[in-house]
């Protein structure tokens, strides 16, 4: 999985209703939040993310996009699309 993520790319991970998975292909790290959400939304709707069951129409409008650059422990960029977490 992701053998060749280049420096300008990122692994995109999505959590939707408690299910979680990665988009098959890397995405540009500089892609806009809106674009990333659109790719993730369409992938979920068509069963394109392993780990997330195929869904009908969904919305990621209220979701958050987090970006984490490559580090010593994770040698590639990562982007997470996730629900808001305001509670404690």
């Amino acid at each position: 999985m992701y053998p060749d993520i280049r420096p300008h790319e990122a692994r995109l991970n999505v959590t939707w209703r408690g299910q979680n998975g990665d988009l098959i292909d890397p995405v540009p790290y500089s892609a806009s939040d809106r674009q990333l959400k659109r790719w993730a939304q369409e992938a979920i709707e068509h069963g394109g993310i392993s780990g997330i069951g195929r869904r009908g129409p969904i919305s990621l409008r209220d979701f958050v996009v987090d970006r984490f650059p490559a580090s010593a422990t994770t040698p590639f960029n990562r982007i997470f699309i996730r629900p808001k977490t305001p509670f404690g």
Partner: protein
Amino acid sequence: MSAPYRIVIVGAGALGSHLLLLSRNLPGQLTVIDFDRVERKNTLSQFHSRMGLGRNKAAALQQAMQGLFGIRIQAVPHRLTADNAAALLSGADLVVDCVDNAPTRALIQSVVRESDIACLHGALAADGSYARVMWDEVFSIDAGGEGQATCEDGEHLPFIAVVAARMAMAIQRFLRDGEKCSVHLHPGGILTL
């Protein structure tokens, strides 16, 4: 920093109350801050019992920890505000954010950054589908939460307990090794950052 540590937990609701339960073996003085009172609905998703109904949450936990385990903790039955935050947090070795609203998280973040205090944040999605256990260096505050009801029927209790356990593990690891491990959690697994 050396033991005994001064650990301040802000928020004694779902995460804070369970975290306290799981932190009873930590080598330090535990302080809990919360202004809220225990209601019947809280007993389904928080470590509060019928014995605490109507009491301040911090005071109720103080009594519970003393009664159940013989452990003394400090209870601060007040709301954290801009006027008292520095005084309540600045002497801590570690601050743990378990609150349910963005303004208070921002206040905590401001104080710990200004005073260079280690800070662990716990944050839950409303539907119990996701959580973050993150050190302040990588934590971003999500808007929302104020006045919203969440988990009043206890549906998410097991997940809340898992998240609180991860927080306790992160604290143990930090106190033992100085390592700051942040994670995302969903009901099916954990993602390490």
